[in-house]
Structures are given as C-alpha cells and as structure tokens.
C-alpha cells in the first residue's frame, strides 16, 4: 500500500516535469528578443566591454553579481561552521 502510494507520487511528479520540459522550445529561437537585440547592439559602447557576456553580468546586471558574490561568502561561512572541529586535536588541520 505504501509502495503504491510512493510510486504514484513518483509517476505524477515525473509526468509534471516531463510536460514542463517538453513544452520548452528547442528550436533555439527565444520567444522575446527585444532585450537580446538591445544588448547586442548597444552593449559594447555602453559598457565598454568587448565581451558582451561580461558586460551583461558586471554592468547591466551588476546587482545580481553582487548577490552571487554574497552567496559565495555565505557558502564559505556555512562550510566553516560544518567543518569546524569541536574536540580539536593537535594533528588535525585547524580550521577555525
């Protein structure tokens, strides 16, 4: 009984994700291209970066990159918390 329940949940979830995945457009043509066209046309002179990807990441979406850097900082904080040794011995690599 419990097994049937679990298998049912699995099938429903898989069907939902498959439906969502199959609805993606695989043709390579995005639905809306206004933003892409603008960045490709003006990105070089507006950001001063020949690499448009870097121009978008560090100039148009700099705030997003600040969030990424903060996430990395938080990851290190969390890892330091998890890997900290309470009963520290002399031989162990001392990590905070």
């Amino acid at each position, binding site marked *: 009984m419990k097994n049937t329940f679990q298998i049912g949940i699995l099938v429903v979830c898989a069907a939902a994700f498959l439906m969502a995945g199959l609805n993606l457009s695989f043709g390579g043509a995005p639905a809306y291209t206004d933003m892409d066209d603008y960045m490709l046309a003006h990105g*070089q*002179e507006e*950001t*001063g*970066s*020949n*690499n448009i*990807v*870097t*121009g978008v*990441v*560090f*100039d148009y979406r*700099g*705030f997003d*990159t*600040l969030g*990424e*850097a*903060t996430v*990395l*900082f938080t*990851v*290190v904080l969390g*890892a*330091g918390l998890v*890997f900290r*040794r309470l009963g520290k011995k002399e031989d*162990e*690599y*001392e*990590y*905070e």
Partner: protein
Amino acid sequence: MNMSSLVRSGGANIMMPFILVYGFYIVVHGHLTPPGGGFQGGAVIATAVVLLMVAYSRAEVRASVSKNVLKNSETLGLLLFIGTALLALTAGLAFFGNWLLDAGTLFGTPVAFGINPPGDINTGGIIPVLNIAVGIEVLGAMGILLLAMLGGMKGDAE
C-alpha cells in the same frame, strides 16, 4: 619520500606556474575574451590548491598555504567589489554605475567598437576592477572550502 611522491611533487612544481598564469589571465582579460571573468578565473586559480593537496602531504600543504591569507582575500575581494560599486555614487551615477568608463584614466580608453575588434586591456571602466575583485574573492572562497575538506582527510597521502 619514495619515488612516486617525487614524481607527483615534481609534476606539480612544473604545472603550478602555468595554472596560476592561466587563472590570472582569465581574470584580467575578463572583458575581452569569451571564457573570461572573475568567477572562472578564481576557480582556475583555486585548482592550484587542489594540485598541492594531491601532490604533497597534509603537513606540507598546511605549511605552504595560509588559511588567513585566503580568508582575508575573500573579505578583501567582496569589500573591493562593493566599494567600487559604491564609488559610483560620488560620480553622480547610480549604484554600479560605470564611473571609470571612457574617463581616460585607469581602464578608461574608449572601446574599439565593432564586431571582433582588437582587444585593448585598458578599456571597460569598472568592469575589469570588478572582475579582479570577484577573482580575488572566488580564489579565497574556493581555497578555504578546499582546505576545510583537507581537514577531513584521513592520514597523509604518502
């Protein structure tokens, strides 16, 4: 010190400068070349720490890689990032405004416009500065994570 450990450490010694130079190249040329940016370059530099961990024993890694330097570099990178973004306010721009762009000073040369222009590293305004800041931060963060995992390693790989 047996033979295989000699081969490992010798190979690591040969590879180390190339890895570091490649990582710093990716960081500094982030605004010019396609596979560029602070995140990728910092990760490449952090692989140098992995190489040290593979090639040397735990005591030697502990002696050569300073945990405090990595910790400080992470904090310094994040502060440099936010500070550069905040300095745009003094120039009358919005937060993250490109206050060094075309200013004629550091990274201030106007960019050569067009498809696939000749790359000049002295362009881009604050974008190279932000790239370098993120690179410093990522190498510190990755290095600290790797050192923390090294602390969980059992025994020495002699």
